[in-house]
């Protein structure tokens, strides 16, 4: 009797499984990955919301390739080992045609080789580590990498602030701030600007006066400060004390309420680059913010916006490819030219997006949307 029951159960399971795989032809399977639990849980939740919202919108418009999109979302728990497991599961078991994920670079780096060897195209919404897309030609990302902010900062200073002479100050012991300043310098000189100072400082120091004195004596029109908000506040104060009155420009390391608390009036006339701002006045952004608020009752952060964008970029590539084939989707991704919430996106040869960044101004102690810069 027991044996009979088992046979029945197995038979039912088998039929069920066959039915599901038959169902595959009527739906497009999209994988999603994010750390919904664990140390980066808020990142994961935002990411999942962004992906789900984009999928729901596409399905409401009739899906992709004439099929409804079925989302298989997996939790990587912010752990590289778990990440490798869920990528394998999505590809081997759920047989997804493409993946949107994941958030943290260290986890993406664990999952990307699996997607690459299975020829499943994937796009990470927010992994900024340069190595991520170097894994292979099936791996893309929706966010710009850190040094790109230096490039955008230089363009903003040159075109919008009309500066002619610039100077940089950065932390010699930190790749993020060094990378931003290097990119700023390269772009600035390419634009034909004059670089009158390029000074480093030691990590953890509080006295920047020697470097700032040297810089300010060259009378720069703009000072590029690629540090994190803590150092930016002190650098701004000391620069103002030494008589510098011009604008300060920096990267998303400035993005903290502490900047104004410590820096006070000194950080006014300061501008920094960021991926996205909910205060961006472009209609596509305002529309997204409104829809997201209606659905989740919260203001979308940059993670939600980038996950939403990454999903749009991927589904758009599937549509262009015309079939659920990995290599065809990959080729379509490479030709992407799509306007999304975080800007107009194209990809360079390293599969990093060339896209616009928003400039946020510190005005009256508040962060105010200033403009969007297209590279």
């Amino acid at each position, binding site marked *: 009797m027991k044996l009979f029951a088992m046979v029945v159960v197995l038979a039912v399971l088998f039929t069920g499984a066959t039915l599901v795989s038959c169902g595959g032809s009527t739906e497009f399977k999209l994988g999603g990955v994010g750390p919904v639990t664990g140390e980066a849980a808020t990142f994961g939740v935002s990411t999942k919301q962004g992906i789900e919202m984009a999928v729901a919108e596409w399905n409401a418009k009739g899906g992709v390739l004439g099929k409804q999109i079925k989302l298989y979302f997996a939790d990587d728990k912010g752990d590289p080992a778990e990440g490798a497991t869920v990528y394998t599961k999505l590809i081997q078991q759920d047989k997804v045609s493409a993946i949107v994920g994941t958030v943290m670079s260290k986890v993406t780096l664990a999952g990307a080789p699996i997607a690459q060897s299975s020829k499943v195209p994937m796009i990470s919404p927010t992994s900024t580590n340069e190595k991520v897309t170097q894994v292979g030609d099936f791996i893309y990302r929706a966010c710009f990498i850190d040094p790109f902010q230096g490039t955008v900062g230089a363009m903003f200073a040159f075109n919008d602030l009309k500066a002619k002479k610039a100077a940089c100050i950065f932390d010699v012991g930190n790749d993020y701030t060094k990378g931003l300043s290097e990119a700023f310098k390269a772009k600035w000189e390419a634009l034909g600007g004059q670089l009158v100072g390029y000074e*480093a400082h030691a990590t953890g120091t509080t*006295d920047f*006066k*020697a470097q700032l*004195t040297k810089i300010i*004596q060259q009378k720069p029109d703009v000072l590029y400060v690629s540090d994190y908000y803590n150092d930016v506040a*002190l650098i701004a104060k000391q620069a103002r*004390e030494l008589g510098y009155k011009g604008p300060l420009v920096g990267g998303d390391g400035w993005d903290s309420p*502490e900047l104004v608390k410590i820096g006070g009036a000194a950080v006014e006339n300061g501008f920094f680059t960021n991926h996205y701002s909910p205060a961006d006045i472009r209609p596509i952004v305002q529309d997204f913010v409104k829809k997201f608020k209606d659905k989740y009752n919260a203001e979308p952060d940059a993670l939600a916006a980038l996950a939403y964008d990454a999903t749009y970029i991927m589904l758009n590539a599937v549509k262009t490819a015309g079939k659920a084939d990995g290599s065809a989707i990959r080729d379509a991704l490479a030709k992407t030219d799509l306007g999304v919430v975080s800007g107009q996106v194209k990809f360079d040869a390293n599969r990093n997006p060339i896209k616009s960044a928003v400039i946020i101004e510190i005005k009256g102690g508040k962060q105010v949307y200033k403009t969007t810069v297209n590279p």
Partner: protein
Amino acid sequence: MGSIINAQQIVNGLQLGSIYALIALGYTMVYGIVRLINFAHGDFYMLGAYAAYGAFFVFNSFMPISGPLAFIVLVIAMGGGGAIALLANRFAYKPLRYKPKLSSLVTAIGVSMFLEYFFSALPVIGPSPRGFPEIIPKQMYTFLGAEISNYVVIDIAVAAILMISLTFLIQRTALGRAMRAVSQDKDAAKLMGIDVERIISWTFLIGGAFAGAAGLLAGMTYPRIQPYMGILPGLKAFIAAVLGGIGNVPGAVLGAYIMGLAETFANAYNSLLGEGIAFVILILVLLVRPTGILGEKVADKI
């Protein structure tokens, strides 16, 4: 060279040197009396900054920003630095006074780490940096082509007044005489009826108070305070004390100003090598004069 050595850079260096000098004095006094390198000294400086921060908000709630308020904050910063130094001496160093020197040295490192982690764990202080208030409204002057704020003047003046008072105390008072006696020979001083432990306590109190004053000045000048803020200045002030000749009071001041100016010029000359150059100068000086610029010849050094 105009962009490296000029009035502004000299002012920058003197300002930094004044803060180092106040810290270096505490290192050198304690070393002179008990032959202990008190690595927790940088943390007394941190504590002074936090005491000043707290005192400012308490007193500013019923007092306007004014000279007397700034003076009260200074006294509390010095009191805070002095009190923690006394406590550290009483509970950590005194029990080990006649034990091997290495034990005291390791204990000093322990006290330093304890203070840093204890204060970052305290909910009222916490690990994140805080902005330091403007205790005195900032004003700017232009002098010989240099932009000078009243803070520069205050830093240098407070340091000078405290250093002159200390010299007077050491040279002209009974307490100073006793300090000099203990530093020369503890046992002989004891035979002469000097309460050695009391003199040691006084030394810690004064050294800690100076560090506390430096903490306030640093907080005003570089308005960001955090529990680990004492590590780097503490280390540099220690080096300044060694450069000037550890155990020697004028030497510590000289060493601190050399350190402040060297660091400023080095950073202005090449900020990528930056402070590395300052340390090369230190090594060169010590190669020529191993006991420091004004140091006495003593055999037992740690």
